[in-house]
Every structure is written in C-alpha cells, then in structure tokens.
C-alpha cells in the first residue's frame, strides 16, 4: 500500500511538471512575436545597424534555432534537451547558456530567501501561537491584525520605503547590490566579504520578513484557537503540568502541523518569492536576471527561470505529501 501510494504521488508529480513544461513550450508559439526578428529590430534600434537582407538573416537564425521544423518535431527536440538539462543559449549574453546564467544567480537567491523564509516562519509562528494563548498579554493578541494588514502590502513597496528612509536619508545601510563593488572584485571566502554581504542583505531581508510575518502569525493563531478546547489540553492543565510544558508539548506541537506544510511550500517557492525585491535592490539573484531578460526580450532565459521555479514547487509539494505521516502519526496513507 505504502509503495503504491509513493509511486502514484511521484507519477502525478512528473505529470504536473510535464504539463507545466508543455505549457511553457506552447505559450510563446501562440504569440505573434518572433524572438529572432525582435532581436534584430532591437539591434537596429540601439546601434543604427541595418542589415541589407533582413529576411534572409531571420531565416538563417530560425534554422539555427530549429524554428523552421514542424511543431511536433520542435516539441520533441525541446523535451529531449530539457531532460538533458540543456535550456539553450541566452540571447542577451550569447554565447553563455541559460543554465550557466541561472547557476550563477541561484546561490544568491537561495541564500537570501532561505534565511528570510526560516526567520519569518519562526517569528510569525511564535507571534501567532502567543496571540491565541489565553494567558498572553493583550498587546500580543492585538499584534495579529496590523501584521495581517502589513502582509497584504507587496514587499517591493516596503523595500522602497526602507531604501528611502533607512538607506538614503539615515545612511545606515547600503542602497543596493550584494557587496561593495570597489572593495571586492568578486565573491571570495573571507570574513570581511561575508560581513559585507550580510550588511547588504539586511534591507532586502527586512522587506521580505515584514511582508510575510502576518501570514504565518494568522495561520498559527487560527490553528491555536482550535487546539485550545481539546480534551488533551484540558487534561494536561488539570493534571497540573507546568505551563511551559503545556504550551510547547501539548499546544504548539499539535497546532504547528499545517504551518510545517506551509513552510515546505514556501521553501519550494523561494526561487520566485523574492523576484521583485531582488530586482529593486539590484541583488544579483534570479529576480535581477529575470528583469534584464524581460528588458532584452531574452525568452530562453525567461523560460529557464520559469522551468526551475516550477520544478522546485512541484518537488516540494510532493515531499510535503510524502513526509506528512512522519510528522503527524494520526495520518496513514493507503487507508483513505
């Protein structure tokens, strides 16, 4: 039973990823925009260079990118190359490949978003748990509504305010970038460099944290309220257990499960969650890459980023489903 469920779930994951990749293939082909022609038009606009034989040039490049083949054959080629991990060449930074560009940006994104997501989860869950706990002071309970309102505001806007007030007016922290460009020629493994990166990451991290603490607090508060009336909590109280033990082992332990699911999903979407904030702060992650790809009509990079975000979310959703019985012994697969 267990094995059958595992295989079913994995098959569904593959099916979902395949559907999403197929969508990525057909979406641009519905469009009247021809990326090759677009690129030449762009060159013409920016350099004043006018090819004498534009049509032939476009044809040659269409052959080079395989755009002249029948649609199904293109689709088969595309699938085969995606499976090999080959996402094609970047148009804006030819001859570099899309995979290279993504591999360069990904560690920055993961570093920033992993830390902020975990911090936000911890802070938000703690606030939510305390807000639902009957013995908490009133001001803790009142914190949830303002945080929820804050959570509705895109982190990009909070980022703009932070840049203006903290970085520009008060000059407390750097305005943007990932490290001081004059001091370091490139990433290196040294303490000053790491401290410099941390200083640059404070504001982007703060915008992301402020904008999503409310989400976690609300979720935890909602679950906490439902646990309170449960018999085992009452029983623990009447047994005379210490308050701290009731709080952690009985109340938080039972209320936190949906939060853990949500955390896994949030970890799956870290690749895309910070796109706007990264772009705002000129942080060299996927967000900045996506922005320059959009500006340069670099479709292959746009699709590459789309692909990697899809795979990340699909895999983490599957993992949540598979790991859930380990966290919550009340759930057994195969019996439902």
């Amino acid at each position, binding site marked *: 039973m267990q094995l059958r469920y595992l295989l079913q779930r994995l098959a*569904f994951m593959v099916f*979902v*990823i395949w*559907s*999403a990749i197929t*969508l*990525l293939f057909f*979406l*641009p082909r*519905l*469009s*009247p*925009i021809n990326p090759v022609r677009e690129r030449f038009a762009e060159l013409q606009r920016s350099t004043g260079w006018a090819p004498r034989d534009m049509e032939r040039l476009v044809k040659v490049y269409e052959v080079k990118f395989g755009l002249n083949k029948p649609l199904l054959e293109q689709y088969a080629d595309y699938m085969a190359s995606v499976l090999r991990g080959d996402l094609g060449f970047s148009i804006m930074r030819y001859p570099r490949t899309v995979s290279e560009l993504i591999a360069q940006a990904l560690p920055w994104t993961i570093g920033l978003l992993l830390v902020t997501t975990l911090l936000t989860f911890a802070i938000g869950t703690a606030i939510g748990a305390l807000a*639902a706990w*009957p013995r908490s002071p*009133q001001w803790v*309970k*009142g914190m949830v*509504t303002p945080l*929820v*309102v804050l*959570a*509705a*505001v*895109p982190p*990009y*806007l909070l980022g*703009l*305010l932070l*840049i*203006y007030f903290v970085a*520009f007016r008060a000059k407390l922290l750097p*305005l943007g970038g990932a490290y001081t460009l004059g001091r370091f020629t490139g990433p290196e493994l040294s303490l000053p460099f790491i401290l410099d990166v941390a200083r640059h990451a404070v504001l982007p991290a703060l915008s992301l944290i402020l904008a999503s603490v409310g989400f976690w607090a609300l979720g935890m508060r*909602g679950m906490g*309220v439902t646990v*309170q009336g449960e018999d085992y909590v009452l029983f623990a109280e009447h047994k005379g257990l210490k308050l701290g033990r009731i709080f952690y082992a009985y109340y938080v332990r039972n209320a936190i499960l949906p939060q853990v699911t949500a955390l896994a999903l949030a970890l799956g*979407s870290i*690749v*895309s*969650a910070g*796109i*706007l904030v990264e*772009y*705002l702060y000129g942080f060299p992650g996927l967000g900045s890459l*996506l*922005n320059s790809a*959009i*500006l340069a*009509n670099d*479709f292959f990079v*746009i*699709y590459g*980023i*789309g692909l990697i*975000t*899809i795979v990340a*979310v*699909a895999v983490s*959703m599957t993992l949540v489903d598979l790991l859930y019985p380990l966290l919550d012994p009340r759930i057994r697969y195969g019996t439902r």
Partner: protein
Amino acid sequence: MNLTLPQPASLPTQPSQTVLVLRYLRRNPSLAVGLVLLAFLVGFGVIGSLVIDVDTRAYPLAAPPVQPPSPEYPLGTDRDGRDLLAVMARGVLLTGAVGLIAGTVGIIVGVVVGFLAGYFGGAVDSVLRWLTEVLITIPPLVLQVLIASTIVDKNKVTVLTMAGVASVLSWMGTARMVRAQVLSLRERAFVNMAKLSGMSDLEIIFKELMPNMLPYLAASFVGAVMGAIGASFGLEALGLGPVREPTIGMTIRWAVYHSAIFNQWWWWVLWPVLALILIFASLALINRGLDELANPRVRRSE
C-alpha cells in the same frame, strides 16, 4: 380560519436596516475601518477626476518637470511633467478598475467552474483538479510574466490587457472555495428535500446553495481583486505594464526607473507608494472582516 396573534404592546420596534448594519460594524472594526479607507480612496479618485482636468494633467508635458510640492502642485510633478495630484486621482481609479475587472471575471468563472466540479463531479472535477495543480506549480508572478512578455506586444499594453492577464489566475481561489463548499452542502437535508420536491439542478444551485455562500463569495471576490492588483503591480514594476497610462504601479515604475530616490525627488515615490499601501490595507481589512462574518468559528477569541 384566520388566526392572528395579538402584538404585545411592550415589544420594542425592530431597528431599521441602517442601524443594524452600523451596529454590526461596531462589532467588526476590521470591516468598518476597511470600508472607510476604501470610501476615502474612491472619493479621492472620483472627486479628484471631476475637479481636476485629469485627461491632460495626468499625462506628460502638462506641468514643469520635477517640481516639489507647492501650492500650485500640491503633490509635486514628475520628470515628464505630470501633475502628481492628477496622476494619483486617475491612478487610483485605473488601478481599481484593473482589480474590479479581473476580480469580476474571476468570481464569475470561479463560481461556474466550482459549481460544475462540486455539484456534478466526474470529468469536470478531474480536469479542474489537474488544472489547478498545474497552475499552482507555476508561481503566479512567473506565469504572468510569461504571458505578458510573450503574448502581448510590450508597447501596446492597456489597462484592459493588465486586467486580462490578471484574470488568468484570479478564478482559481474562488473555484476551489466554491467546490469545497458545494461538496459539504450537497449532502445536507435541505438539498435532498429540494431534489425530492422536484427542483431542477439550476434552481437548487441558485435558490438553495448560493444564498448559503454569499459571505464566502464576497470574501473571495475581495481576495481576487487584491490578487489582481498585486499581480498587475508586479508586472508594472518589471516594466510590463501599460506604458501610456498613469496607474499607481506605472507611476512607481517610472519613479524607480528614473532613480527618483537618488535624485531626491522623494514626492514622486512617496505618494504612489502610500496610495498603493492604503489600497492593499483597506482590501485586507475588508477581507478579514468578511471572513469573520462568514466564519463565526474564527470570531475573536480575544
């Protein structure tokens, strides 16, 4: 047989509808504050658009460039010579329009799909589950960037295009909510009763099921509007917005694009950011208030 009970004279008269609504709002401060904020924003947009000649002043070359706030230009002007007071008045309405259109499309499509899947089940339900699962895997911003960057010509984007792109995802939340609600309501006694008394499926859906779901529908409509405004703002921030229209998002896009902060043109950034924060805050508060109305179980534990 004509029996009427004599009215006891001491029974207090039922207060009017307005009084009841006001009394409810006092118990639901989230909803009240949210509605007041929303009324302020709409009032500002409508009155501003009537008083100021927004058709010229909210567009380039209507005023001297980069003027700080002054009696003549209370909110200042931007680099291209737009009067920011006019921009804000028109922008609030345009941004609101994107949200309203996408939210309306979302709620209609979502209700239809959700009912089909929940009430009839079968193939429709399977297709819906597959579709939502696939669409959930693609991060919303990424999907919308893909659509906006490949299907639409960047220089011809209008407010309607933005609403269209935002609509692609705005129906999913409603569809899932409606499906879940219908599944739980379908087996209740009153639905069986209606079936036995010969009501058609459509009658059951509209007369028996819909009234039970109104508060949920209202909350998910507000959610869809919020999602649409957020989505269109993301696209605008990345430069995929309507380049010729002064929506709030485009104003922020231009301010960032022309480094307004580093040039000390603070007013160009501050007003649109505040306006958008107010829009999101009012919708979030209304949404929370409606949630409380729909779902008494989450009613304040404080």
